[in-house]
Every structure is written in C-alpha cells, then in structure tokens.
C-alpha cells in the first residue's frame, strides 16, 4: 500500500509537469505563429525586415506597414482567439455541455443583429463616435444576449439544460432578425453586413487592441482564481455543492466573464464561429480537465488557432485578405479532426 502511495504521488507530479510543459509548448507555438503572421502580407516584407522596421521605427514605408497593418492584425488575432476560446471553455464547463460556445448559444448572432441595425437602419446608441457605432451595437446586443441567458439561469428551477435550449432559441431568433434586416437592406448595406458576419481582422486598430487587452487582463485573473471551483463543477453540480460551492454564484460570475470576453471580441472582428468551440476541446485533449491547466490551455489554443488563421487568410490567395472567420473553420476543422483521431485516451 505504501509503495502504491509513493508511486501515485510521483505519477501525479509527472502528470502536472507534463501539463505545464504542454502549456509552455502552446505558448511557444503562438510565438512562432505570431512571427509568421508578422512575416506574411501582400507587401512581401520578410520577418527579418519586419522586425528591423519595427525596432528601428521611423516613418519609412516598411515601418508604417508593420506598425499600422501587420502588427495590429497579428496582435488582434492572438487576443481575439484567446478571448473567444477562454469564453468557450468557461461556457462548456458551467453549462456542462461540450457544444456550448459563444457562437452556438446565440451570442454572436445577437452581436450580428446589433451590427446589422447599424448597417441597415443606421440605428445606434446616441453619442457614440461614427467609427465605433458597429462595435458598440454589437457589444450591447452580445451583452444583452448573455444577460438574457443569465435571466433564464436565474428562473426558479431552471437547470443548465434550460439554459442551453434558451441559448439555441436566441441563436435562431437573432438569425431570423438578421435575415429580416438583410431582406430590406440596400445593396451596399447588405455587402457590409455580409462581410462583417464573415469576421475580419482587417478592422484591427491599436485602440481596439487596448480595449481587448484590458478586458482580458481584468477577466483572466478572476477566471484563473475560479479554477478549482470550476474543476469541482465538472464533477457535477451535486458534487460541487457538497464541497460548499455556491453553484449559482459561480455560474453567474462565469457568465459575466463570458459576456465581457465574447462581446468585446465579436464587436471588433465580427462573427468567428469556430474558435470558441474548438479551442477548449483541443485544450481538453492536451491537458485534461484540471482547470488550472485547462483554462490557460484553452486561451492559448484559441490564440494559436486565430494566429494561424490570420497567416492563412493572407497566404492562401497572395495579395487577398480572406475573411478570417472563413479560415478558422478551414484550419480548425482538420486540426481538430486529427487531434480527435490521434488522442490516446478513449471515452
């Protein structure tokens, strides 16, 4: 018995180390993808040239391209991927549903509706500067959708199944609203809207990056602080309760974090469907469900997927920036399938 105990402790330590290494490797992979992203673009600057231009600064053509185009796009890709994937990870845990993601539960659809109101009907929140109208609308509606979800969660006796079904109802409702707006839209508005729904990093600016970074910097510590409680919730609601965890409060706080992350990300880049769903799955396959590792790994795999997607969106057709929302699906799906097919532990 004693021997088994010592073995188990050593085994557990190895398990933890393996996970730390996995998280570190993910981070390194992001660095590579990020560099690749900086080195890719229609202007043909190489990575070395880009870095040199970045470091030496100045107002040369190369410096301008890197500072105002490539770097913002590369940084936005990483931040948006991180935000959406972390949101998806938390969502899958608090709703105990591997299909939950900001996209599948209607949050992206709500944001699209907000954006559509701006494009088609020129409806906006008074006082918002013109180039912020679309993101502001998208943000408000995304947040509203999550608040509706929370309201549903707060209803007496409503379980997580109710919540998921309610999210799916939101998804269809907002999609229908968007379709109505598309139906009455002018050709130009329709084009803008369709482009927006495809998700694009081309709208990246340093202001948006700052906002995204602040949201992440605020949310991530709270998310990590809840890691043990989230792991407990994975064991089942009853288990979590028997540990003395206030499950309703944990879920509420998590939905709040999810809403901030999703609403901000979607507001700035439009609909990006796949990252919030796949990032967490990849994380789970690599590090398991201990949320101390699962949450950071989800964040990082989301960032990695988006960064690679950003590279691909520039590289697939040279000179053309394909909407990144399309590329995430194209890159993410095969990546995902390979991981599922090659994972060691079966169900």
């Amino acid at each position: 018995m004693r021997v088994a105990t010592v073995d188990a402790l050593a085994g557990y330590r190895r398990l933890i180390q393996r996970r730390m290494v996995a998280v570190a490797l993910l981070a390194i992979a992001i660095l590579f993808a990020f560099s690749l992203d900086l080195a890719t673009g229609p202007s043909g600057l190489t990575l070395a040239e880009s870095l040199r231009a970045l470091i030496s600064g100045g107002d040369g053509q190369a410096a301008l391209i890197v500072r105002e185009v490539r770097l913002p796009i590369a940084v936005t890709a990483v931040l948006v991927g991180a935000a959406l994937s972390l949101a998806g990870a938390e969502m899958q845990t608090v709703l105990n549903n591997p299909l939950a993601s900001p996209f599948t539960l209607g949050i992206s659809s709500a944001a699209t509706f907000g954006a559509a109101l701006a494009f088609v009907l020129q409806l906006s929140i008074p006082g918002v500067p013109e180039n912020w109208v679309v993101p502001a609308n998208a943000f408000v509606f995304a947040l509203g959708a999550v608040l509706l979800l929370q309201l549903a969660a707060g209803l007496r006796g409503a379980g997580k199944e109710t919540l998921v079904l309610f999210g799916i109802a939101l998804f269809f409702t907002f999609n229908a609203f968007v379709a109505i707006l598309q139906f009455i839209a002018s050709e130009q508005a329709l084009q803008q809207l369709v482009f927006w729904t495809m998700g694009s990093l081309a709208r990246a600016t340093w202001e948006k990056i700052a906002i995204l970074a602040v949201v992440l910097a605020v949310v991530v510590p709270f998310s990590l602080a809840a890691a043990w409680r989230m792991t407990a919730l994975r064991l089942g609601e009853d288990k979590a309760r028997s540990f003395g965890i206030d499950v309703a409060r944990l879920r509420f706080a998590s939905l709040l974090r999810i809403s901030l992350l999703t609403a901000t990300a979607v507001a700035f880049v439009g609909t990006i469907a796949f990252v919030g769903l796949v990032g967490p799955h990849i994380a789970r396959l690599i590090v398991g469900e201990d949320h101390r590792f699962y949450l950071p790994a989800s964040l990082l795999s989301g960032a990695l997927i988006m960064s690679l997607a950003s590279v691909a969106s520039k590289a697939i057709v040279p000179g053309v920036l394909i909407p990144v929302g399309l590329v995430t699906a194209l890159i993410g799906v095969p990546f995902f399938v390979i991981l599922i097919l090659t994972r060691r532990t079966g169900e």
Partner: protein
Amino acid sequence: MSPTLQVNTLSAGYRRRKVIDKLTLAPIPAGTVTALVGPNGAGKSTLLRALAGFVPAKGALRFGDRDLLRETAARRAQTVGLMPQSAFAGVTLTVLETVIVALKTAPAGGPSDLDIRQRALDALARVGIADLALQPVNELSGGQRQLANLAQTIARGQEIILLDEPTSALDLRLQMVVMKLVAEIAAEGRMVVVVLHDLNLALQWADRLIVLGSKGLRIEGPPREAITPELLAEVYGVRGRIEACSRGIPRLLIDAAIDEAGA
C-alpha cells in the same frame, strides 16, 4: 457532550412534489451509524439531500445548537458531507484529482499542496483504491467508481457523513470493507447516516434504523427491533422472516413478493 442532529417537522421536496412532509426524528447522536432504508422512491435520497442543503427545506434542522437551515452552503459543507447516489458521469479527471479537488475547495483552505496530495491518497488508501489513483474516473468499473465517490466524501473529515447507497455496486468483500470503514468513521466520533437496500447489512452494522415508507416515517429504532415481518409486508410488500443463523445472529430471509391481489 457531543452534539446531536435534530430533525423536527422537516419538509423538503421538488417543485411539483413535496417528498418529505413534516418529518420528525429522534435526535441522532454523533459516533453512531444510522441506516436509512425504504423502498425505491420513498424519499431517502431526498432526505439526505435536504440534510445536506441541496434541496430547499422548511422546519427545523439543528446540529447541537447550530441552526443548519440558516447557515450558508459553505458553512454547512464544513460539517456535512454527502456522497450522492451516482457521480462522475463523463468525468475524465483521475481518481486522485477528484479527491484533491474536494480538499482544495474546502472553505478552510489551509494545508499545503503536498499535504493535500498526501491526504487525498490517504483517503484512497482507506477505501483500498490507492492503486487506482491515476486512472480517469470514467474508466473505472461501477464499483470502483462508487469507492472513488466514497473516498472523496470521507476525505474532508466532516462531522456528519451522509452516504447514499455506498454498497449498491460492490462485491461481497467490498461491502464488508466499506461497512467496516463506516463503523470506523463512527468510532472516530463522527456521525454516519447511510442509505442501504440490504437490510442484512443494516442488521449487522447499524446502531439505528430509520424506515421511510411511502407515507413518510414508518418506524425508527434499533435494527433488530424495527425489522419485523409485518414491517416487511407493509413497507416493501414482501413476505419475509428474521431467523437466527447457526451462530445466533439474526438474518433476514425474503420468500416472495406479495402480489397486488393480496394472495
């Protein structure tokens, strides 16, 4: 004097169904094993869940001079530990991790990571599954999963331990191992309320018996006095008898189900 658990006119249930209706029990003393028995759907699980605070309850529930119904979930969980009837569906964490989580989320916090790992392993060793420590719980057999569930429940060392059918999936030897563990926990001065379907286990191991019938509490008291052929007929609808075995220990024998016609 060690505190007792007092259940007075306690009502609890679900939205459309009140399962426990004004239940009053004799005070349950610490350091004892109480078996909670009754037919399927009688409300045993619901009662345990009400005691642990998982389902809303009205009435009075006191532990010593503490009013448990007014305490926060976190405070109550420091004293009351519940092992649910089923657990770990689709969970890929390892057995050891599930116990570590239970200790890590304890309101007290306290011990270092290394202590927690050791304590978690001790809990596994106590139910005899230290060798399964690094297996994912969803890859365990039904009985092994039940043992992991039990190890997790006893790990925190709460004063009141509520076990919902801890032996239902176990082989003959493990049933004895678990019931002996239950007796040991009681001997430490903690209180165990355990739901059992095997009345022979109750006869052998329990100090007290609570029998829930379809209309609430049917009888409570020492198992050997409480279990009678009349009770078996009325509560379970079976014909049965209690007979002393060759060693003089009372054993329950069930002969038949009494059919609806009342033959």
